[in-house]
């Protein structure tokens, strides 16, 4: 079957892609600016076509724990929310990471802290990439910059989650979630008829009971588990880095930006190059694992890097660690739900040259 072209919001694309990729369950709770995902799924009613369970939970806390229950049965399950709701989910997320369960969590980020705004922001970078909940763990973090990627990263997210038995977060923002674009949708896939061997399905006489837990009262056992997680994260760092470069070949300056900011920077580059400033863009697609090696290589060839984010400066810390002092690194970006203007980026760049 061929792909289908549709005009959709990013949020709707996530919902439709979830059905088409054969997801088994979605558990959500309304919050702006991502409520369209739950609304779309309720209207599409996939339980009567693919058998996908869709449930509105009583809270974000319940929703993420439903994801835990479903994931521990080896099912492809997901939840979506926006910043304040993702904070509520952190307890469940750390348990999911601690129990090594695969799932997809979408954060359509809005400005914070607290209740903040309902407009787009990128101020949840630390929370997404550095853990978010308690304990030593990482999510695999995918950063879509288009409606197409919001659709595509549903399937990619599930693939990575099951490959590594690790929760995956799609870190989007209110702009990409709400805007409409053309999107090519994959044909409908059947839901998987099998589940992995580690899943709880009822204990037959032929195998030992399966216990999904994140508890180990023996510190030696817990440390061994922590070491296992570290090894997994290192493998992910080695194998799963994804990024895109734009006009970096002759660049003297590099902008580093993901999601909506990356799109803004594309325009900034056009404006800057018209003024003779050779600037390129590195767009991390995975925020964990971060494209550390590539940024370090590029740092040897350019004069300066600017991390452009709609935050007070969060990813800039990872850019600095990657560059490791080779060139100056700055942060620029608007906050509070305001999307950075392309001209502002150019002006900032010129002020630092």
């Amino acid at each position: 079957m061929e792909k289908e072209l549709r005009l959709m919001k990013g949020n709707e694309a996530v919902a439709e892609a979830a059905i088409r990729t054969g997801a088994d369950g979605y558990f959500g709770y309304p919050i702006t600016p991502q409520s369209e995902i739950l609304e779309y799924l309720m209207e599409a009613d996939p339980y009567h076509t693919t058998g996908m369970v869709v449930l509105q939970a009583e809270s974000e806390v319940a929703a993420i724990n439903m994801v835990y229950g479903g994931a521990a049965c080896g099912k492809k399950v997901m939840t979506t929310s926006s910043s304040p709701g993702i904070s509520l989910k952190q307890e469940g997320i750390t348990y999911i990471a601690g129990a090594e369960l695969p799932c997809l969590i979408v954060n359509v980020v809005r400005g914070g802290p607290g209740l903040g705004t309902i407009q787009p922001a990128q101020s949840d970078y630390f929370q997404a990439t550095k853990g978010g909940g308690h304990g030593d763990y990482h999510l695999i973090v995918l950063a879509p910059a288009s409606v197409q990627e919001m659709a595509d990263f549903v399937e990619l997210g599930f693939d990575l989650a099951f490959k590594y038995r690790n929760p995956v977060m799609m870190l989007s923002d209110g702009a990409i979630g709400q805007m409409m674009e053309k999107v090519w949708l994959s044909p409908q896939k059947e839901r998987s008829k099998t589940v992995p061997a580690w899943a709880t399905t009822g204990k037959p006489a032929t195998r030992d009971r399966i216990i999904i837990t994140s508890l180990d009262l023996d510190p030696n056992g817990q440390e061994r588990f922590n070491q296992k997680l570290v090894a997994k994260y290192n493998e992910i760092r080695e194998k799963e880095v994804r990024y895109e470069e734009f006009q970096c070949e002759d660049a003297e300056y590099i902008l580093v930006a993901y999601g909506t900011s990356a799109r803004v920077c594309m325009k900034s580059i056009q404006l800057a190059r018209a003024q003779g400033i050779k600037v390129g863009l590195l767009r991390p697609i995975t925020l964990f694992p971060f494209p550390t090696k590539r940024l370090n290589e590029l740092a040897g060839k350019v004069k300066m890097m600017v991390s452009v984010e709609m935050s007070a400066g969060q990813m800039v810390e990872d850019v600095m660690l990657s560059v490791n002092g080779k060139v100056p690194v700055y942060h620029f970006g608007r906050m509070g739900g305001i999307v950075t203007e392309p001209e502002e980026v150019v002006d900032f760049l010129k002020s630092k040259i």
Partner: protein
Amino acid sequence: MAQATGIKEIIKPENLVYRKTKVMTDNILSYCPGCGHGTAHRILAEIIDEEGLQSETIGISPVGCSVLLYEFIDIDWQEAAHGRAPALATAIKRLLPDKFVFTYQGDGDLAAIGTAETIHTCNRGENILIIFINNGIYGMTGGQMAPTTLPGMKSSTSPYGRDVKLMGNPLKMTDIVATLPGTYYVTRQSVHTPVNVRKTKKAIRKAVHYQKLNKGTCFIEIVSNCPSGWKMTPVEANKWMEANMFPFYPLGDLKVPAEENAQKTTNSEKND
């Protein structure tokens, strides 16, 4: 030595009248002497065995004294975060509707931190069994006041007794869920005497049956003891439970299926 030989002579297969349920593992129970958890585990395991459900069951263990429940009953388990077991059970049952799904939770887990999950799971009428062990105290963390601690009852965080004006009243969660349309069978039992053990076991068997018929949420409270937390001997604890817990948490059915009521009426009419 003579005594040891005597015991050996007694312990012979032909003399066994009560044996370990094969669904119980050989792991040593981690509970204090006299605690009701072991008995509750045992009858649950017996039902799973007798109903042939071992390969069909997914249990959810809580945070509390029974956090290691998965070490004692030989079935597939998921360990939930504190209070969240009903949310896990909701998803499991919806994704695997043919499985027998139950949660086993203490009063702190179910009636304090998990209040929202408990009420909404029951209100949706999720087709699961919730077993609720109520001993009026947080046992695992060392005997703090629970949502179910009786008025005036002492605990490590109500050392002068629970003052309801300051600390609120004990919460009768079982009474609350019995009012919800999603629950099908709600009962309050105990496991401190052989008669009560048999009644509780019967209740669990009914819940298994109702779950097979997709009837909605079954909720079984087991009023239990905590000799260590209450700072009593096991015998004293059971006496105290009868004298103080049962008047506040009376044993018996809070909600029985309409058809069962009808059945009872028919039977009594026949008997008459």
